[in-house]
């Protein structure tokens, strides 16, 4: 009699679990959970895992710069401003620096714009040094660790190398004063001077509302095989080709301009976002720097990104398994791009589309105002939280000094 009840109970439990599994399978059929090398961390909540102290700098480092040029709120480097605003009203912020794990310095180094809207990096090193000088004299926390528990947002082309030309950026190297700090930047390339260990790579800023307004119904059939809009030759700076994008973009054009599967041109269509939603693959080749907002746009619109940039490090690479989501093509394989893309098995393509359809994936690439759970701000905080607890060698022993305040090019030493 007792065994009969056990059998009955087992049967009931079995059917219950079957029901749940069936539902999960249905969910999995539409999207898939995304877990990178750090585990299933995209949806982690950073609140309670870390505390951030925001230095109060005089407004000449942030507010006044923004007032002088409000265009800084819309360009692709706007993450530094929005990160500041987010931290000011975030629950991870603490007003007690003694209990803080991380210290944030709000200095807008990428807001000195030319009339055309491009940031000039020439004053940025001096501005950064001036800010660091200020916090080291007014608070004891910088000297305590020489910046090892401080983080800075440097979204410019080559991060903290503060130059737009790669050769000059490499020459300068990362600003000496930031040697021990954690850098939150958009630039990521392995074995490159301007990427130091422990940096957090973030996506460039793309306006979320603008992308939302251009959404089309998801049952619109994806009929474009490969899509790209942008320059192939930078005629102003590199007329022969071969320098810009290491010749990769020119190679794409020369090989595939006659191919009906490749919808590539230098046009500026008004339906750019809509077209991306009708494409299966979107090319994201490097330009003068390996990163671009195209990756963000491709992810938001469900178009599989084809990344053509050797050794690139993509945003939040420990939380997002980019290998499974995008297609990586070596620059030397560009002439074979059509063979590569048409020989991907259909199940793999379907899986990539499923991963891209996951809303947490799209959310992680965006900087919405106001912040939403799972967005790029939270991913940055999660990344910082994963670096905790700090090592013992973070704290300097008394009298020990690592940073040299006079290191770096002579022009940097002038006050700002």
């Amino acid at each position, binding site marked *: 009699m007792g065994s009969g009840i056990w059998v009955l109970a087992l049967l009931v439990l079995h059917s219950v679990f079957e029901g749940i599994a069936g539902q999960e399978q249905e969910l999995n059929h*539409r999207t898939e959970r995304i877990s990178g090398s750090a585990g299933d961390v995209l949806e982690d909540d950073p609140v309670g895992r870390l505390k951030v102290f925001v230095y109060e700098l005089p407004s000449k480092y942030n507010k006044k710069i923004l007032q002088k040029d409000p265009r800084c709120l819309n360009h692709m480097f706007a993450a530094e401003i929005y990160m500041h605003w987010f931290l000011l009203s975030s629950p991870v912020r603490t007003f007690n620096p003694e209990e803080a794990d991380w210290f944030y310095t709000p200095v807008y180094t990428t807001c000195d714009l*030319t009339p*055309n*809207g*491009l940031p*000039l990096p*020439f004053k940025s090193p001096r501005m950064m040094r001036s800010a660091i000088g200020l916090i080291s004299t007014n608070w004891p926390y910088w000297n305590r660790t020489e910046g090892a528990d401080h983080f800075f947002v440097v979204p410019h*082309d080559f991060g903290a190398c503060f130059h737009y*030309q*790669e*050769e000059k950026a490499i*020459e300068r*190297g990362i600003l000496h004063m930031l040697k021990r700090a954690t850098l939150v930047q958009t630039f990521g*390339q392995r*074995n*490159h*001077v301007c990427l130091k260990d422990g940096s957090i790579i973030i996506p460039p800023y793309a306006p979320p509302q603008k992308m939302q307004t251009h959404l089309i119904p*998801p*049952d619109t*059939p*994806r*009929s474009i*095989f490969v899509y790209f809009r*942008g*320059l192939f030759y*930078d005629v*102003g*700076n*590199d007329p022969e*080709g*071969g320098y810009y994008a*290491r*010749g990769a973009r*020119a*190679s794409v054009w*020369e*090989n595939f301009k*006659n*191919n009906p*599967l490749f919808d590539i041109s230098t046009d500026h269509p008004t339906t750019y976002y809509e077209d991306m939603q009708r494409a*299966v693959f979107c090319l994201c080749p*490097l*330009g*003068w*720097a390996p990163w*671009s907002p195209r990756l963000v746009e491709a992810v938001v619109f469900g178009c599989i990104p084809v990344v053509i940039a*050797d050794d690139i490090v993509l945003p939040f690479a420990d939380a997002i398994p980019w290998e499974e989501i995008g297609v990586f093509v070596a*620059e*030397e394989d*560009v*002439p*074979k791009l*059509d*063979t590569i*893309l*048409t020989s991907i098995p*259909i199940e793999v*393509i*379907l899986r990539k*589309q499923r991963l891209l359809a996951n809303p947490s994936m799209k959310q992680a690439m965006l900087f919405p105002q106001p912040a939403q759970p799972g967005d790029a701000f939270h991913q940055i905080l999660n990344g910082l939280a994963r670096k905790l607890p700090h090592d013992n060698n973070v704290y300097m022993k008394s009298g020990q000094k690592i940073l040299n305040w006079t290191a770096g090019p002579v022009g940097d030493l002038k006050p700002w």
Partner: protein
Amino acid sequence: MKQTAAQQPNRQAFTAFRSSPGVLFWPAVHVLCCLLSAAAGFRFSRLLFLLLFSPSPPSSSSLHHRHLLRQPPPAILPSPPPPHIHPPPPPAAASNGVVVGRHGIRVRPWPHPNAAEVARAHEILARLQQEQRRRYGVKDPRPVLVVTPTYARTFQALHLTGLLHSLMLVPHPLTWLVVEAGGVSNETAALLARSRLAVVHLPFHEQMPVRWHDRHRLEARMRLHALRVIRENQLDGIIVFADDSNVHRLELFDEVQKVEWMGALSVGILAHSQREGEKGQSPLPIQGPACNASGHLIGWHTFNTLPYAKKAAAFVGDGATVLPMKLEWAGFVMNSRLLWREAEEKPGWVRDLDEVGINGEEIESPLDLLKDASSVEPLGNCGKKVLLWWLRAEARSDSKFPAGWVMDPPLEIIVPAKRTPWPEAPPDLAFQVIADDEDHVEVHPSKKTRSSRSKRSSRKKKKREAHVDAQVSDLFNRQEK
């Protein structure tokens, strides 16, 4: 990033002001090189000087100064005009990363699409779209019953083939009820046999009249006949009234899946306006449901026939504007269960089909099948989306056409072309002279008889595109002289 790059010239202007005087050396070298290359006739890289004249590069800084040129790989693009002098490979610094500097542009020897790959890509696209439809499209589609009245005439092949292809693309199970006036004919049967659809070919034993007014009424009766067949056989599905000359979008068949009992769609009316009509772009007239702000049906948009009152077509094929009726059947869809004798949850506002159409009652639109027209559901975003277009284009009712549109035996009339690659041979004048005086040639565009040719004017009037006919009239001139 391209913005950054495009900005670089301006920024270099900025840097020039700020840099030290030692940099003036490089512009001077640049000028020297320009002069040298102008003299030599081709451009060479300035780094040649650096390598020839500079001392051996300091080893520690060479790792940072990655200005090194790589040996360009074999398939380099030669087309940017003159050939480069490739400097010898510099002392290889141990670079385990990507090298900065000028790279070659790799182009494969045959940069054209491979047919097999294009085919494979299309397979991938088809499979992906199928998956998309499965995920986002209509779930559990109900079968579609398409009712089409038709009759054998010149333009039937044109219209019916178009409709046939549209229906073949509909992804849902479909049954096509074709009602033919004048009984089942071989013409229609041959056309229908080309499709792979489930076709029910119903004869209707009356001839299609010539007057448009009578024709509309007969078509309504033919549709009623089809509805009776549906009722007798208890066919299940959504009834769509697709006239053979109308144009349908495939989204229509997805949209009608939303109907519960009876729905109304917006129909674009393509009553063709003659060229002497208004010059301004008047919007397309639409027949369909009218909704208020909250999306409820409050009335109907119908076609304004006043501008065309005098010019309306009376006979089929007389070239004037064909006017639609007040509300076309094509703009309505219904659930076939409305017609069944017993169906659960059948609403009370539909009349029994057996009582409709008896005693000479004229059915003008499906609204006459209902007792109460207010329960009709507006479809297509409350009529804002136009998913089908009404069009009537017919030849004259006495126009003849080759049976099955096959020329058997082939035509024997040979008319010499104006320009031939071989020398002019005297033609065999095997044709009949229709007009004896070339000045009074008349043109009958609607006479489509097998042996007719349209004759145009002689060279005195403006040359038309019929060079053939100019040649023919030329021959007349020569003959008569």
